């Protein structure tokens, strides 16, 4: 080793906050509540907690244990760590995925981070006064450049994203340049408690909203909580017949509150076109889509499968705990997701906009629906600023973690110092981000990268991780490795779970998910859609932007592969002397 200096964490709480900071992101506050509401509160939570035990915790513990194992042998990325465990050249090539994922995710995640910062600054400047849904939508379209390619990267003041993007890029690389303990750890030590405090402030405000408009008593915070958490759903189904064609179409409207349900029942009794449908928790649990959604939420929320946890854990020594630390990081993420995120977004949206207004994906909910909520709320500007600043903090703690594997890889493989590694990684991610932010029409580049990297490759990486831990390293050795220096033990039941259930569960979900999203065929419903990310590349009308985005990913993969192939650093299974190896 030449110029690269060995790094380390400063305290156990610091590493836990850094790992939980990596996991806590937009998904906790925007994606999770939307999923719970869509699939029915009670049933979704049952599937969610089961998935946490069968997928989340096992992969998390595997990552922490393998990371520390590799770190003791002088490796800080998945390339070296897999090489050290498998003792086979194939290991380091599989580890390439663990470098490509975080670097690529950073390329588009920093753009979303810039949106959050931009929104919070615009709230602070008092520029977020909208007149209805179209106003909020127009601002989002202008700010992100969703309308046309090239319109997203502007530097014309705070109403465009360019300035914020530069600021976020600068902040991330400044912190990463400062090193593990002086950069990431210190930032997370302040940012994570600040994030929780801001979320609690917003939570108190939301829970004390009551019924904002007395003329619309069905839109209240109580109805919003019911929309999310009620185990049994009551839906009013209205059938309308087209006079010309004779076709019958059905529309469903969720009903909340005893009085409104009774009112709907009375209406249904007199009107043959209306029908009340009650969907119980057991019936909802029989829906395979619900299980896919719950497992997917756990999987992405905990940030397992990125290779980041392995890198973070590699800076620990054999005396440092990994089992309790892993559990603590997971619990911090779950707390932010269920206890904070689960009580803020959807209930607030229902209280102000009604059940129909509280629907949409992550971006629609966060950047279209919530601004309308803050617009209707007294002192909404202040709370809008707090909420988007909270999202910004959550995003920075995540994006920071995505740079560390790349930095560690470049420094060890090329034997360069921090200035050089920061410059190289800054150039690579800068080019990728430029592609994402330039091809902003329909957020195509961002969406494509998120799909192939942020979802597809992460499934692959997580499957590789659990198989290497449970089958190559082996459960007895893996558990023994994890137990060194640990305050608590992994319960024995997790042995068979990690060996059989987790890989099977993971592969099953991946199979169903890939069938629908890559090939456009839903195996559960049998429906064949006209879309699918695979068809964008190989269908009748391939998307040029999708191809360009995939080319960026392939270029990066080739670059990392070449370095791995030529670097002498990864030709060894360990960088410890024979005596040290025996002691380990």
């Amino acid at each position, binding site marked *: 080793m030449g*110029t*690269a*200096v060995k*790094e*380390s*964490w*400063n*305290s*156990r*709480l610091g*590493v*836990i906050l850094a790992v939980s900071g990596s996991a806590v992101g937009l998904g906790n506050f925007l994606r999770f509540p939307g999923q719970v509401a869509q699939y029915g*509160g*009670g049933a979704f*939570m049952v599937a969610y*907690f089961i998935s946490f035990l069968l997928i989340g915790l096992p992969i998390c513990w595997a990552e922490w244990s393998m990371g520390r194992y590799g770190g003791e042998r002088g490796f800080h990325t998945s390339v070296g760590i897999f090489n050290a465990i498998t003792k086979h050249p194939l290991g380091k090539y599989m580890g390439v995925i663990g470098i490509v994922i975080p670097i690529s995710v950073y390329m588009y995640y920093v753009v979303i981070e810039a949106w959050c910062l931009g929104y919070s600054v615009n709230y602070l400047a008092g520029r977020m006064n909208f007149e209805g849904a179209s106003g909020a939508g127009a601002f989002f379209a202008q700010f992100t450049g969703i309308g046309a390619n090239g319109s997203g990267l502007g530097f014309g003041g705070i109403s465009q994203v360019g300035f914020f993007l530069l600021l976020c890029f600068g902040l991330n690389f400044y912190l990463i*340049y*400062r*090193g*593990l*303990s*002086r950069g990431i750890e210190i930032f997370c030590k302040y940012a994570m408690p600040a994030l929780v405090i801001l979320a609690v402030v917003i939570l108190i405000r939301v829970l004390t909203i009551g019924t904002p408009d007395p003329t619309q008593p069905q839109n209240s915070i*109580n*109805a919003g*909580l*019911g929309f*999310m*958490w*009620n*185990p*049994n759903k009551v839906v009013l189904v209205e059938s309308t017949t087209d006079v010309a064609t004779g076709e019958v179409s059905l529309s469903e409207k969720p009903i*909340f509150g*005893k009085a409104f349900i009774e009112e709907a029942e009375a209406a249904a009794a007199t009107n043959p076109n209306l029908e009340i449908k009650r969907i119980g*928790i057991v019936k909802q649990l029989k829906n395979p889509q619900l299980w896919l959604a719950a497992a997917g939420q756990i999987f992405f929320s905990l940030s397992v499968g990125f290779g980041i946890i392995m890198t973070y854990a590699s800076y*620990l*020594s054999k005396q*440092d*705990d990994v089992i*309790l*630390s892993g*559990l*603590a990081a997971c*619990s*911090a993420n*779950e*707390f932010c*997701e*269920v*206890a904070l995120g*689960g*009580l803020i977004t959807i209930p607030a949206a229902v209280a102000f906009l009604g059940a129909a207004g509280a629907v949409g994906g992550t971006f629609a909910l966060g950047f279209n629906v919530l601004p309308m909520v803050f617009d209707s709320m007294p002192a909404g500007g202040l709370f809008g600023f707090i909420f988007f600043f909270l999202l910004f903090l959550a995003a920075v703690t995540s994006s920071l973690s995505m740079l560390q594997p790349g930095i560690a890889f470049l420094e060890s493989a090329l034997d360069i*110092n*921090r*200035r050089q590694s920061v410059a190289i990684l800054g150039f690579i991610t800068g080019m990728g981000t430029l592609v994402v932010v330039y091809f902003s029409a329909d957020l195509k580049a961002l969406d494509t990268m998120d799909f192939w990297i942020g979802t597809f490759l992460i499934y692959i990486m997580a499957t590789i991780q659990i198989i290497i831990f449970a089958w190559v390293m082996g459960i007895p050795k893996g558990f023994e490795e994890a137990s060194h220096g640990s*305050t*608590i033990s992994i319960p024995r039941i997790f042995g068979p779970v990690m060996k059989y259930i987790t890989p099977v569960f993971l592969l099953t979900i991946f199979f169903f998910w890939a069938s629908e999203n890559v090939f456009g065929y839903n195996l559960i419903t049998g429906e064949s859609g006209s879309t699918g990310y695979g068809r964008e590349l190989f269908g009748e009308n391939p998307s040029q932007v999708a191809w360009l985005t995939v080319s960026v990913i392939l270029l990066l993969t080739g670059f990392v592969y070449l370095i791995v192939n030529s670097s002498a650093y990864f030709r060894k299974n360990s960088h410890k002397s024979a005596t040290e190896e025996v002691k380990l």
Partner: protein
Amino acid sequence: MNTGGWIIMLLSVGTVSTLFAWCIYKVLSTPGESEHLHGFEIETPDEKADKESK
């Protein structure tokens, strides 16, 4: 929100909050947590490298 909703919400929020609180308590009450794991970095890695090379 109906009774079932309250139960589900309180159980979910209570479970994750209790787990989180227990983990934090366990981490902070473990002897040696306040000690540095490996020593605090007071310089950036490059500053350190520059100093060592001089």
